[in-house]
């Protein structure tokens, strides 16, 4: 046993797979300790906030202010509101309304804005100008208002008695705050999803659930497959025929279709993560059963089994002691594959809307499902779905690597 383990850990495939998998498990365990936010809490009002550091604006006014005189602050400010495309568009509008092109210097911000402010009229339309264009120019006009102003911004509060505004503070353009001195800062490394949930926290919780689903599904599938395979292979005869008939039935019906039918028929109110895991397990034992059976058939005529019989051992003893150890490595490999296929099956089901109930736990599939429903892929909100894909891929990949590694150790024909 020790020897086998050592061999397994010498396989580079296994080691890489195992490292990735351990890393995932560790993250899943450790992250919630440090970031105990509830994964399903809706924190953002609005969809798909970009990844980044969110600093509370209100608190930032109250944070100590520092003056930093940095070069190019103005131009950065202007560039953020008025890029080259916008300047060209302004030029286009101005030319469209009769300003000679040579009078417009789009790089001279002040002159351009002067020209713009004196000429722009939101009601005017030139041929070929669409409503979308018109809206764009209106938005552009709004965004450049006061762009060149050097005045400080005024912070005022409402006087409760008179209802008038009372100036409390002025924010200079050179004022800076230190983020660490702001009371409320939330880092959203992967932004938020369509519900306004923190994607990273949700992802990690979902990974945990998906792994659990995978494990439960794997255990269920492997147990059913193992027991049926052992019984059918060792006893043979009528028992074998009956079990193989059932197994063939399950083989002929694609298991994913079966899975969909079962999940559909048990109704969503019954579909907890555990139930889904059991259902997945229940539909995916077939190959384990068949493989175990064929292994057992080849084992049951081996001399050591005959010898064990001659030593007067009972069927159960023989199955447990003389058959099971020989297929154990195989079963472990099948188990690993079942786990990863269980995770994928859950993801597939959830994407079809047949996954576990949504209000209790996040799962990887559900996250994908909602990201797709809210068209994150069309809108380019990659953080809502891409990390999920990567996670699923990493889990499946690491499991397959481990399996390949073990296969190289256990399967003599693959040895090099």
């Amino acid at each position, binding site marked *: 046993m020790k020897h086998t383990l050592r061999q397994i850990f010498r396989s580079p495939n296994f080691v890489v797979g195992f490292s990735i998998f351990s890393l995932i498990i560790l993250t899943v365990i450790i992250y919630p300790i440090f970031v105990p936010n509830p994964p399903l809490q809706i924190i953002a009002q609005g969809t798909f906030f970009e990844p980044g550091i969110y600093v509370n604006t209100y608190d930032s006014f109250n944070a100590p202010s520092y003056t930093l005189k940095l070069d190019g602050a103005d131009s950065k400010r202007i560039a953020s509101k008025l890029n080259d495309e916008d300047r060209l568009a302004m030029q286009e509008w101005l030319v469209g309304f009769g300003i000679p092109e040579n009078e417009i210097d789009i790089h001279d911000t002040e002159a351009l804005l002067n020209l713009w402010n004196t000429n722009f009229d939101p009601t005017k339309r030139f041929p070929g100008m669409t409503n979308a264009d018109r809206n764009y120019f209106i938005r552009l006009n709004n965004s450049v208002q006061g762009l060149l102003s050097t005045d400080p911004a005024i912070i005022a509060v409402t006087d409760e008695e008179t209802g008038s505004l009372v100036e409390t503070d002025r924010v200079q353009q050179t004022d800076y705050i230190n983020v660490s001195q702001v009371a409320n800062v939330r880092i959203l490394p992967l932004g938020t999803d369509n519900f306004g949930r923190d994607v990273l926290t949700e992802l990690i919780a979902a990974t945990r659930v998906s792994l659990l689903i995978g494990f439960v599904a794997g255990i269920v599938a492997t147990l059913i497959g193992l027991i049926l395979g052992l019984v059918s292979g060792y006893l043979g005869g009528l028992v074998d025929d009956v079990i193989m008939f059932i197994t063939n039935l399950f083989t002929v019906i694609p298991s994913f279709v079966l899975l969909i039918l079962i999940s559909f028929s048990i109704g969503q109110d019954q579909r907890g993560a555990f139930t889904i895991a059991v259902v997945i397990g229940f539909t995916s034992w077939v190959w384990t059963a068949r493989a175990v059976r064929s292994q057992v058939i080849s084992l049951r005529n081996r001399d050591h089994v005959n010898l064990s019989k001659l030593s007067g051992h009972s069927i159960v003893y023989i199955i447990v002691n003389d058959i099971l150890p020989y297929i154990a490595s195989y079963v472990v490999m099948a188990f690993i594959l079942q786990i990863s296929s269980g995770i994928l099956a859950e993801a597939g089901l959830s994407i079809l809307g047949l996954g576990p109930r949504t209000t209790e736990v996040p799962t990887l599939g559900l996250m994908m499902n909602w990201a797709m429903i809210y068209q994150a892929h069309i809108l380019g909100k990659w953080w809502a779905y891409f990390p999920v894909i990567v996670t699923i891929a990493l889990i499946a990949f690491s499991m397959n690597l481990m399996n390949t590694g073990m296969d190289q150790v256990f399967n003599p024909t693959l040895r*090099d």
Partner: protein
Amino acid sequence: MANVMLEVNELSTKYITRFQEDVYAVDKVSIKVEEGKSLGIAGESGCGKSTLALSLMGYYFPPLHYMGGDIIINGNKISGLDPDHVRKTVLGKEIAYIPQAAMNALNPTRKIIHFIEDVILEHEMYVTKKDIYERAKKLFETLGLPPEVLQKYPVELSGGMKQRTVIAISVLLLPKVLIADEPSSALDVTSQKMVIKMMKHLMDAGFISSMIFITHELPLLYNVVDDIMVMYAGQIVEKGSSHEMVFDPIHPYSKGLMGSIIVPEEGLRDVKLTAIPGVPPNLKKPPSGCRFAERCKYVRPECRVTSVPLREAGDGRVYRCIIPETELRENYAREEQKK
């Protein structure tokens, strides 16, 4: 002196296992086979005889690695050449190798004639399939195989027929030297006899010039080859003509081997079989002294220390033992009397 077809000088090869351990399977083996002669290699399983056969081809692929020595076929040195070159110009043409259980390696979905086409087309570009068929048919007829076999699938043939077909295919390109590793051991006695008959015919009819035959079945070897070489733990321990080797072995190991021969002949029941206790050494760490020392009845302290060179015993016989030939023979005679 007849033309030397195959000459091997101090050939050493090793396996490298998955755990990067070296197994020194062939240790400085030298062989000379003259034209028209056949050599048998005998030994316990794991003594390196199959590895030697593989090494003789000069074509090495992992986990087998070449360590040193020369292989000269018909005057051409093939060791140290580019493996691809060896595969294209040497294998099949100069030297042919029939591995153990070769007959079970035939792709069951292809007809026999297709294997033949593959072999010929690999080496000759401008032949038609019809020509190939004619050639194959002629060859099969000469070798006493029914030509219908050509159009059959491997599964349709009996084991003996399959093995004979494999041998026929391997001599298609008329190699000088044929190396056969246990070509008849999985067959029933009658098929075995037919295979042997065909191999002898190959020699007699000049399809091949020399043959190396590897088996652990001594009675068979005795009846097939001119000379027998006994291997033990990757080394040659004794070599001589087959009659001498069977009836008058020098080395204690050969003696043990020959004493275990069982044949259905009158008087067999009265013979006491000899036994060699113990197991061969681990070739990952071969002993520095005599490799047989651990199992040898006549072992002396110095056996375990110094490595033993091959000694000449006249008439081309060699043996690897510290104890002189005469002393060994005396020992054997004394034991004979004890019984």
